[in-house]
């Protein structure tokens, strides 16, 4: 079941929805890109259809809607701590690609399952979030490899949309939204999944501890020592990087009041492993690249069993200032692991 909705009607539909829901979508921020006179497309609140950037891959991932780059978790006055509250507690609707919807399952692994503790900040956002699946071009974009990661189609969404010139095609899924579509032209429509990308990535078969350890001393990592700038661009744009650092911000220097925040952290950036006394681990670009790659295509799955951390969005490749390609690195690693496993390259 589906609908064909005119651009004008879709716009009113969104305006109606935004009274009951907080709606997030990829949005253009002119001249805020990395290079002069370039734009950036990132997630933000939208209130009308023309704000949504639907014909490009967003520079940053949908995770920003649920887990902001900076988030206040506690307020304090002296030693009196108070939890930050969500004042506008309307449910959220997030326009997202299939890979982005999958990335939220990785967030669930960490914030709801890891250690058997549920993170209350993430949970309160997650429980009230529904996704609107945005159809991708048939093969995605040039750096995408979602088909290789099995994330080119998604199941968990309220309804799906395809922006088709002057009209929007809608695949209905969650009956809660039927009333919003009533009165529009009915048609059979299903979102087309991405089953194939230009870029094909082969995940290495690391089935035993010996191979996992041998991977740590591969020569290939040393190439990144000079090349990787350790800037963290790849991890900020990554759909699935969940790490954060906690820091306290005091409102004024002469008061004991302030807030405790979480801010996104990157395993590529200096300071990530720093402990008191100046001890730290993984100091070189190669060691950090190895740590990230292994997390995305081996370690996470080994721990949680279900799926790899990486969803194949390719945003890391898009953002790297020195053109390090994650997907190419994974393919290289697969060839190295073949050698370790005694096979041919």
């Amino acid at each position, binding site marked *: 079941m589906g609908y064909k909705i005119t651009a004008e009607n879709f716009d009113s539909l969104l305006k109606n929805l935004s009274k009951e829901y907080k709606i997030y979508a990829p949005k253009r921020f002119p001249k805020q890109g990395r290079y002069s006179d370039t734009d950036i497309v990132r997630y933000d609140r939208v209130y009308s259809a023309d704000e949504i950037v639907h014909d490009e891959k967003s520079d940053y991932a949908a995770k920003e809607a649920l887990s902001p780059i900076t988030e206040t978790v506690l307020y304090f006055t002296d030693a009196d701590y108070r939890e930050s509250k969500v004042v506008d507690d309307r449910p959220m609707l997030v326009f997202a690609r299939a890979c982005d919807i999958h990335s939220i399952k990785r967030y669930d692994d960490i914030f709801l399952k890891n250690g058997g503790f549920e993170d209350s900040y993430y949970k309160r956002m997650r429980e009230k979030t529904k996704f609107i699946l945005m159809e991708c071009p048939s093969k995605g974009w040039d750096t995408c490899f979602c088909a290789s990661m099995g994330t080119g189609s998604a199941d968990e969404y309220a309804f799906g949309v395809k922006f088709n010139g002057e009209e929007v095609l809608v695949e209905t899924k969650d009956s809660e939204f039927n009333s919003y579509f009533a009165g529009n032209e009915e048609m059979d429509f299903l979102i087309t999944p991405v089953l194939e990308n230009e870029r094909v990535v082969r995940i290495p078969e690391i089935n035993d501890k010996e191979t996992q350890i041998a991977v740590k001393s591969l020569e290939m990592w040393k190439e990144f020592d000079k090349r990787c700038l350790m800037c963290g661009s790849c991890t900020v744009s990554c759909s699935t990087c969940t790490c954060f650092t*906690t820091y306290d911000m005091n409102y004024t220097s002469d008061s004991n009041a302030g807030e405790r925040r979480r801010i996104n952290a990157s395993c590529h950036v200096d300071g990530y492993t720093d402990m008191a006394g100046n001890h730290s681990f993984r100091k070189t670009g190669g060691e950090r690249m190895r740590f990230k790659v292994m997390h995305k295509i081996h370690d996470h799955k080994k721990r949680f069993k279900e799926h790899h951390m990486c969803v194949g969005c390719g945003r890391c490749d898009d953002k790297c200032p020195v053109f390090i390609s994650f997907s190419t690195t994974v393919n290289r690693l697969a060839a190295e692991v073949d050698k370790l496993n005694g096979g041919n390259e």
Partner: protein
Amino acid sequence: MENLIMPTPYRLLDVKKVTDIEYLFRVEYPEAGNVKFGQFMQLSLPKVGECPISVTDFSATEGWVEFLIRKVGIVTDEIFNLHAGDLLPMRGPYGKGFDAIDIKNKNVVIVTGGSGLAPVRSLINHIYRNPEEVQSMELLFGFKDDSSILFRDEIINWRKKHPMVLTVDKGCGLDGECVGLVTEYVPHLKMVSDKFDDLEVVIVGPPNMMKYTAIEFEKLGVPAEKIWVSFERKMSCAIGKCGHCRIDEVYVCLEGPVFNYSQAKYLID
């Protein structure tokens, strides 16, 4: 829903100088009965932030926990500004402690380097007070020099009951101690049992010290399964969310800080 990162303020009972750079902070903690040897807590100062610190000793009956703190970081600098009677917010205890080791009727060998003595002190004190629980306890402590020796009074008491080797990298130590690294003295330990069936070895100290000390024990034929180490890593949350302490698929805050060496020897950062 329970907020797992919410600290609770507790009253600081006493601050005692241990060395020139390390102080012992005793904090009122009525839930001390829940603490296990080798666990850590997040000390959580408003305006400054949080850091994980090992519980160096605790008393379930008197309701306190103690932390040995070296002034080497942003949070610890601020803790040094606190005085008895002030409030110290904390959360925890976290992590797997030395309770992972079954010490009952075992020959327990404990080797520490520098402030590595702090996380293992509660276990030593427990065995010191309840020597009947183990067959024997043997101690090997290494310190940089005389002035960095921790818990001198307790060491004097411990060695009245238990064989002990105390080494200093330089100087002369407490009283006729050995000069050199702890690794040199591993082969001289008694360790009682030949076949190591009843042996449990605990090694805590800087990463290299733990690695090379464990290798010395392996050279003597001690199986990795009989060796235990405690890791220290940066942590922001201590509950498996922030990612800083992860090595491979392992989260030190959840699966550690105490690891069996058969696992730890493969956890290479």
